[in-house]
Every structure is written in C-alpha cells, then in structure tokens.
C-alpha cells in the first residue's frame, strides 16, 4: 500500500512536467492543444532510439524535448497561418505524429532494460552519495522498515528537476515577452494593439509546451524501461485532470501559485489512480475510464457545490422574509380582531 504510493508520487512528479506544458497551452494561451497525445510519445521515441544507439541518456531527453518543440510549432503554424481551428490543428498533428513516432521507433515498442537510462546513470552517483542509506537507517530506527521504498532516487531527482522547470516557467512568464504571451491568450486583440506578434507567440508557446510534454514522455520511458507507441493515448486528459485538480485544491491566483498547484495536481491525480487500481473491481485497463470520471468530477463537483450553497443561502433568506410576513399578518389580524371587538 504505502510503497505503491511512492510509485504514484514518482510518476506524478514526472507527469508534472507534462501537466505544466498542458497548463501553458490550456490556461495561459487558451488553446486546447491535443498535440500532446502525440508529442508525449515522440519524446519517448526519440530518447529511446538514441539510447539504444549509444547516446548519453540526458542528451537523448533534451533531443526528445527539441523534437517535441518542433511538433508543437507545427500545430501553431497550422492554426495561425493555415487558419485551422485549434482543436483540429492539434488532432491533425496528433494523428500525424502517430505515424512519425512509429517511423522513429521502427517498431511499436523499444525495451530499454539493458540500456543505460537516465535514472540508472544518476543512480550510480546516488548510491555513492549514501543519502538512501541514511534515510533507510532513519526509517529502521523508527521501526518502519516495511514502509520503505526501494530508493528515493527518483523522488529526489525529479523533485529537483520539476522545481527547476517550475522556476524557469515562473520567470519566463514574468518577463516582457512572457507578459505578451499571457496577453495573447488573455485578450489577443489588445495584445496586437500593443505590438505583440500574437501569431508568433502562439507558435512559440505551443512549441515550449510540447517540448515540456516530450521531455516528460522521455523521462517516463526511462522510468518504465521501455518506449511504447500507445503510451500517449489520453495524455491530454491526464494533463487536464492535473491542472483542474491542482487549481481546484490549491488555487490559481498568482502565477507561481498556479504552477505549484499544477505540479501537486499531477501527483494527486497519480495517487487517486493508484488507489483506484488497488480496488479488486478495477483492472489496469479501466484507467482511462477512471481518468474520465476524475475529470468530469473535478469539473462538475465544484459547480454543483457552489449552486447548492447559493441555493441554501437563498432559501434561508427567503425563510426570513416569510417569517417577517407571517408576524406582520398575524399582528394585522390581531389588530383587526381587537377592533372588531
């Protein structure tokens, strides 16, 4: 039970990079970008092929991100210069990338079990550092051996990496160019009237978003130990679920707060999924359905809750008036009877 939670947190941290990318398009640019389903796999595919061919794992992740960046830019160009509807541009790229990903990989799955993945690479350094050993001795001194994960490597390294990416994103969105990017999504007519090349910002924004998605896909590939052509199916919904859960639970007032909320949302989403899958009733194949239900729930429950609360408030107020009226009429009828007497 507890050990599976470690796995959920690990995966949540890796998927958080993807969720931040989705946040950039969905919320900042107001562009529902479905390229994600394809670019997530593209990152994994490029990285896996490069590792098999002996490239450095970290370089392969960056390369995957770069190709994802270009894929996102193409979606942006389809929309801005081809005047294709945003949803359709994304779907077109998603479909195109499916074939491209197969071309890159050459086969539907690439196993990386005997290859040096990024986690294996930093793992040797991690063991030397002795941090795991120190934490484990702490656990056993408290008599909690059974609650120990195999290693804290993924959690620590990903936490560091995700925080770096978050900080970079916060910084970028506060720069002059970042403000123009946000204005493009917020009010594009106004952005244009203040010299912002909105088409350019949409293209670059989609590029950065899909670059992040592809990096996340590459890292998941390293984490899983294989690349799979179908890994990206429904990824956009996973990203969206993370964004919505995060915003709902942790707020979205300030930029830095919102990006943190998205990261936490991604982790919580993974925890919910892992808890749901522990129920005997569900199979691993039910994950997409569970995801759909989570997204619907996250979208609908707050709205219903607000309606319910407002209704209760209104009813309470109306009762007050009813009560006032009643005392009034009672008083009046009393006066009437006394007069009649």
């Amino acid at each position: 039970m507890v050990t599976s939670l470690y796995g959920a947190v690990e995966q949540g941290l890796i998927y958080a990079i993807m969720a931040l990318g989705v946040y950039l398009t969905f919320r900042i640019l107001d562009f529902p970008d479905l390229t994600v389903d394809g670019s997530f796999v593209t990152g994994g595919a490029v990285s896996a092929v490069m590792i098999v061919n002996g490239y450095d794992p970290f370089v392969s992740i960056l390369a995957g991100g770069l190709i994802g960046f270009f894929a996102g830019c193409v979606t942006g160009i389809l929309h801005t210069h081809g005047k294709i509807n945003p949803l359709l541009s994304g779907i077109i790229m998603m479909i195109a990338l499916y074939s491209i990903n197969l071309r890159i990989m050459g086969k539907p799955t690439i196993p990386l079990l005997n290859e040096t993945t990024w986690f294996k690479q930093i793992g040797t350094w991690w063991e030397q550092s002795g941090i795991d050993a120190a934490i484990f001795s702490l656990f056993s001194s408290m008599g909690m051996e059974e609650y120990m994960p195999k290693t804290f490597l993924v959690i620590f390294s990903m936490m560091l990496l995700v925080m770096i990416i978050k900080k970079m994103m916060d910084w970028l969105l506060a720069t002059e160019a970042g403000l123009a990017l946000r204005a493009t999504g917020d009010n594009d007519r106004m952005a244009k009237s203040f010299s912002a090349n909105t088409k350019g910002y949409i293209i670059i924004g989609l590029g950065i978003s899909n670059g992040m998605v592809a990096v996340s896909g590459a890292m998941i590939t390293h984490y899983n130990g294989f690349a799979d052509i179908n890994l990206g199916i429904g990824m956009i919904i996973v990203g969206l679920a993370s964004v919505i859960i995060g915003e709902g639970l942790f707020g979205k007032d300030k930029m830095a707060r919102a990006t943190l909320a998205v990261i936490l949302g991604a982790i919580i989403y993974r925890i919910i999924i892992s808890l749901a899958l522990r129920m005997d009733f569900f199979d691993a194949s039910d994950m997409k359905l569970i995801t759909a239900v989570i997204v619907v729930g996250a979208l609908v429950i707050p709205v219903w809750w607000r309606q319910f609360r407002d209704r209760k408030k209104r009813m309470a107020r109306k009762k007050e008036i009813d009560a006032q009226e009643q005392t009034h009429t009672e008083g009046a009828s009393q006066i009437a009877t006394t007069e009649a007497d």
Partner: protein
Amino acid sequence: MLQLKQIEKVFYEGTPDEKRALQGIDLKLNEGDFVTVIGSNGAGKSTLLNVIAGVIFPDFGKVTIDNQDATFIPEHRRAQWIGRVFQDPMAGTAPHMTIEENLALALGRTKKRSLLPGVSSKRKKEFREILSSIDIGLENRLTTKVGLLSGGERQALSLLMATFTKPKILLLDEHTAALDPSRAELVTRLTKELVERHQLTTLMVTHQMDQAIELGNRLMMMDAGQIIFEANEEDKKDLTVEHLIAKFQEIRGKKMANDRSLLTV
C-alpha cells in the same frame, strides 16, 4: 503625421451584400491635430480607424504615417506608432493580468520585448506615478487583476495605457459610448488632459455631436463611406449641434429622421 490618399474599401465584393465601406477617403493630420469624426451607423468610421491601425488593408489607396508608407504594414508592427482605445471597455486590457502587468505590456508597444522582468521595482514606482496622474485611486491597486475593475476604471486604464508611451497617432473608437454618463464624462476629461499633456495627434470617432464639438481642433462628418463635411479650427469655434444637423441635411438633401435618432445630441 498621418496621410490617407484615396482610400477605398469594399466588403463582400461581387455579392448581393456588397458594401462600399470607404469611397475615396483623403485625409491629412498634422502633428498635434485632434480630429473628431461623427457620422451615423455604417458611415465607415470604424472601418477608417481599422485601415489606419492595419487591422484591415485598403483595397485601394495609400496610408502614410510619419512620412513612411504604412499601407500594408501588419497591425502588430504598425502598433509601435499607434495607440488605440476601443469602444468595449473590456477590449483594451488583459483581465487576468494585474494592473502593473498590463502597464508593463503597454510599455512594450514601442520597443522589442526582452527576457528581462516585465515589472521591476523601478518600473513599479513609475507606474504608481503614472497612475496617480489620472487620480482615480488605481495607484494603490497595482497588483489587482484588471478583470476586477469597473468598466469606467478599465476604460480609464486603457486610455492611460494607450497614451503614456506617447504614440505618434492616437485612435479613439467611441471609447466613451459604453459607459454611464458620469464615467463617460470622466473618460472624456481624461482624454482631453492626456492628449494635451503628451501633445498627441488624435483621431476620435464619436456618436455624440456635443462631444465632437467640445473636443479637438478639427471636426469631420462621414456618411456612406465619404467625408461629407469638414470644419477647421476657425469654423469649429462657432459650430453648434443645430449647425451640424442643418449641414448634414443641406449636403445630403434628405431628412435626418432616422439618423437623428442615431446621433445623440
């Protein structure tokens, strides 16, 4: 500063809905001119502003801004010379960004945007000063999201954002029409102050004849895509609303029954 030569614009050309929005507009604005434009709905006033701003390109004619041919320069590049305020108070600001972020964005109109922080502490101080100059209390709300401001406040902010970087040309598109009378008066007063302070060359479209007479040093009346009447600085001093209506009837030779209801006195 701004020169338009024989501007023509036709919408839906070759269809039954064909509309000749602009028919041979010639216009010259000298530096410091403040021209008010009146005309009924469909006269082509907004189309004229859109041609100047580069939102649409003319089918025929030439637009010159500060002695440069700007006819086909796209909107976002032309914006470095042009400040604009729209009719809709929601249109000129980004609602999910704070007041200081909006001002920082406006600052980027005239120069290339960098990867330096948009809102530095030095700029914050400047923004506070600029905001206190319009005296509606926004200087203490720098980190408030603009979406939380009232329509009047947003329009005042839009006006400030369009003017404080001193554009070569200021375009105002019925920017007080969607506000209640007291707010409209405030924004009109601010317009006067800001245009005078920065010595801006301005073109203002309005529905209100009294506003058109009160503001600016020149006035022009448009109808059916043409400029049908112009008043220079001398003529404008003696203009009254009655004069304008009489002028319109004289030139167009038709009763203003319909138009009169559209042009608010």
